[in-house]
């Protein structure tokens, strides 16, 4: 890519980010809280989907530990951002650990700590199990997610056990959510287009050959895994400060499955695919709530079926993997070039239609 082309691309990206910024400014001030919440969830799910896509899509590892890392991030942020009085109220069954009680930090610090702690645990857990192949790694990471849930339920003085934490300050807003999402997107784009990104993809394509080309599997897999855990931790933290209430049962494998669906739907190995699928699915999940309450079509009322949302989801997952096995984008990205070419083709088609005489 020549320097001019690179400058052009940077300008276009800055343009997109500015547009996004304007949109968020408008949204934060004008939309109702329900819609804002959905947009926040979109941002969080984009981060989570990219986190899972990094390991599963780009590096070829099958990790199912997202929910576990989210839990770590969520609890870290909650403990760091809740003022001591609120903590006091929460820990009425047994008093909280004194050191943790007095910990308090601004949101940015809480977010970073959430990510770092999740990454650290990710590395510790990952180190022994990363050499496992596909299926085994899936079960091991799934198991780890379960263990985290069990541990958090049993550490009353740290996490308040099964009671969970309430009253977490709601710091998450569209600015936080989307700036972090944009940072994640930009960071991953540069990382994955760099030599390290190529190393990840090489590991995905053929581990043995990658190793024979001098790529240290343990280092690179741990790197991908740790970054992925970091992002999931940040996502969990944003979640905690959005929902204001968390408990160990929230972060079950159900959540990981949903993120997995977003990754598969968007295309394993496509950043733009993940952005699209996370947004589409988050909105769809809310829209589908309609299925769970009665639909009044005027002449007939369809009774709501609770739980139907999830049934539809699982059908989508199976259908995508059976029929659309590369997801929306496969391994390709929606680049400015493809967009421009598509627009050009559309314009020239229209031009032809206007100039062709109608046939008799």
């Amino acid at each position, binding site marked *: 890519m020549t320097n001019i082309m690179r400058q052009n691309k940077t300008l276009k990206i800055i343009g997109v980010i500015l547009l996004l910024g304007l949109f968020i400014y408008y949204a934060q001030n004008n939309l109702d809280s329900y819609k804002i919440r959905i947009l926040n969830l979109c941002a969080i799910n984009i981060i989570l989907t990219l986190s899972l896509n990094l390991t599963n899509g780009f590096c070829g590892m099958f990790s199912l530990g997202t929910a576990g890392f989210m839990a770590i991030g969520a609890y870290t942020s909650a403990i760091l951002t809740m003022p001591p009085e609120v903590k006091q109220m929460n820990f009425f069954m047994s008093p909280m650990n004194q050191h943790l009680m007095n910990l308090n930090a601004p949101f940015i610090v809480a977010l970073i700590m959430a990510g770092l702690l999740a990454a650290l645990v990710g590395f510790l857990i990952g180190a022994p199990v990363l050499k496992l192949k596909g299926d085994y790694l899936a079960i091991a990471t799934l198991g780890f997610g379960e263990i985290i849930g069990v541990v958090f339920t049993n550490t009353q003085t740290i996490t308040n056990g099964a009671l969970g934490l309430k009253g977490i300050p709601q710091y998450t807003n569209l600015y936080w959510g989307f700036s972090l999402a944009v940072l994640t997107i930009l*960071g991953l784009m*540069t*990382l994955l287009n*760099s*030599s*390290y990104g*190529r*190393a990840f*993809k*090489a590991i995905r*394509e*053929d581990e*043995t*050959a*990658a*190793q*024979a*080309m*001098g*790529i*240290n*599997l343990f280092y690179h897999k741990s*790197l991908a895994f740790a970054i992925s855990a970091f992002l999931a931790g940040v996502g969990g933290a944003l979640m905690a400060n959005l929902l204001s209430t968390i408990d160990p049962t929230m972060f079950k494998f159900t959540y990981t499955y949903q993120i997995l669906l977003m990754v598969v739907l968007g295309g394993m190995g496509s950043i733009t695919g993940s952005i699209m699928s996370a947004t589409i699915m988050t909105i769809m999940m809310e829209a589908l709530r309609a299925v769970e309450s009665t639909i009044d079509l005027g002449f007939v009322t369809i009774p709501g079926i609770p739980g139907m949302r999830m049934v539809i989801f699982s059908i989508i997952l199976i259908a995508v993997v059976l029929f659309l096995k590369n997801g929306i984008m496969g*391994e390709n990205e929606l680049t400015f070039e493809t967009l421009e070419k598509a627009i050009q083709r559309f314009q020239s088609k229209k031009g032809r239609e206007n100039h062709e005489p109608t046939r008799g």
Partner: protein
Amino acid sequence: MNLLEVKNITIKFGGLTAVQDFNLNLQQGQIVGLIGPNGAGKTTAFNAITGIHKPTQGKVILEGRDITGLMPDKITKLGIARTFQNIRLFSNLSVLQNVLVGHHLRIKSSPLAATLHLPQYIKEEKQMIEETKELLKSVKLDDVQDEKAGSLPYGKQRRLEIARALATKPKILLLDEPAAGMNPQESQELKEFIMHIRDEFNLTIFMIEHHMAVVMGVCEHILVLDHGITIAQGTPEQIQNDQKVIEAYLGVETDA
């Protein structure tokens, strides 16, 4: 001093002895061949040298340093690169990217530097791309550099695998059946190619091959393996006339 010394390596898988007391002395600039019937243990010997299997007994010594049992990526960093019998390219990556991966092992910038596009990384990336393009030109694959590796015809895939191995800047190149599936003209080109890269990149080459025309035409020294045992070694003329080799492998005069 010998560049590579393989001393008495024996490789056993459970009760099966795949390779027994294998010895090799490679000197800088040599092209040495390893031949033998299928299942003789040739690729296993390769795998022991490159670190995929740890030999049950014996040592592998590179430039005086014991590399026995080191991880494959470490051995590649120390200067031994290889190709595979069943071509193992990164099929979904482009030709350019395949060879670029070969440069990754010597990268000095950290992942953070790469993500932040720090000047040190930009310089390194630029250099890697330049060297890759040079390499592709010298193996005549520059016209397909953006094609997916998996979509190339067989002969080009083999060249690409060799180019990728060359990108790791090895001292020794291990080729596993580079002429497999080639017609007489292609094998002739391959012979010239091997000698060319040996000279241009200052390599030492150790190759497994069944194509007798290629082996006899390009190797200065040949080892013959049968059921894991080295039954003969010597110059091409010596090997061609060795009774044991003829019985076990070469058989009656045919076009290989």
